[in-house]
């Protein structure tokens, strides 16, 4: 019984994450291409994608290394871009924190923007899911994503610099993230959180080491939480 529901949760995760295939392919290919252009060989490029498995941080590190920035600064900047993973981890904890340690470690390695978004929105919608179902669903959600991340990094590295700039692959990332965010605006508090985060992100764009992103994220989260409190107080009075 448990294993069947876990299997169907896994399958549902695959289905729900499938649209991201379209995004991961250009994104991973782009990393492979840019890494090759920066002088990395195929093995180094693959190691990067498999060990780090975080697109935005990989692009950040690659960019800074090309500018001959000191290694410490490269690391701090790329980790700052990835700080959101700690927030994702915190946000997933109430849902999968009771799973065995090895499963939590596996989910941690596989926490990327797409699997987090797909997972957390499902867990919020269906609070009755059991912990094994949630882990199954989460692993399902990474199934169409992570192997393609590896595979198309390889293809990008092999085709190298043959992709013309006119394909505008750079913009695959923003478009996808916007498409992912839109269905998450379920309450006014979500909208407020996003608007505040955008305004602060633009104002803080000059803050070094990508810390503007973290400042904006925290500001947005505080705005969302406050709005939620106000709304629940108003409902309480009415």
């Amino acid at each position, binding site marked *: 019984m448990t294993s069947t529901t876990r299997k169907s949760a896994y399958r549902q995760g695959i289905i729900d994450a499938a649209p991201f295939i379209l995004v991961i392919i250009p994104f991973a290919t782009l990393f492979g291409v840019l890494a090759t252009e920066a002088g990395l060989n195929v093995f180094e490029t693959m190691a*990067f994608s498999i060990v*780090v498995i975080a697109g935005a941080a990989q692009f950040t590190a690659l960019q800074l290394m090309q500018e001959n920035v000191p*290694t410490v600064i490269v690391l701090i900047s790329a980790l700052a871009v990835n700080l959101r993973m700690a927030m994702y981890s915190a946000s997933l904890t109430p849902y999968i*924190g009771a799973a065995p340690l090895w499963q939590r470690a596996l989910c*941690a390695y596989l926490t990327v923007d797409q699997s987090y978004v797909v997972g957390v929105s499902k867990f919020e919608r269906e609070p009755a899911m059991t912990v094994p179902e949630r882990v199954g669903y989460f692993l399902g959600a990474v199934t169409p994503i992570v192997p393609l991340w590896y595979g198309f990094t390889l293809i990008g590295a092999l085709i190298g610099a043959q992709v013309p700039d006119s394909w505008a692959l750079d913009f695959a990332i923003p478009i996808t993230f916007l498409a*992912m965010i839109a269905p998450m605006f379920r309450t006014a508090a979500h909208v407020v959180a996003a608007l505040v985060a955008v305004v602060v992100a633009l104002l803080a764009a000059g803050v070094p080491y990508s810390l503007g992103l973290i400042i904006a*994220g925290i500001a947005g989260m505080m705005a969302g939480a406050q709005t939620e409190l106000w709304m629940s107080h108003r409902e309480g009075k009415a």
Partner: protein
Amino acid sequence: MIETSALWTVIILLGVGSFCLRFVFTGLVGDRAMPDWLLRHLRYTAVAILPALVAPQVVWPAATDGVFDIPRAAAAAVALAVGLVTKNVLMAVLSGAATLYGLLYLLG
């Protein structure tokens, strides 16, 4: 040219660091209860961080050296609008991509 030793230092330490960031709460907090105020903030993690990540790239795209670009801004607006109306991620991505390529072709 990127030095090989610097490259491997970055790959390995960035990998370890990223894993620690991903594991810090799920792994260490586990199923201990977290306070309400914290959970209330965490509910807005995704809707705050992702727009904050995207906004500067939409307004000042790296591909145009930070110059505002109508096709990219329009593609972003269309992807968001289609996502809001249809709640369909795939439709939103495809509409955004169509807008981007259409305008790059027309204006390019």
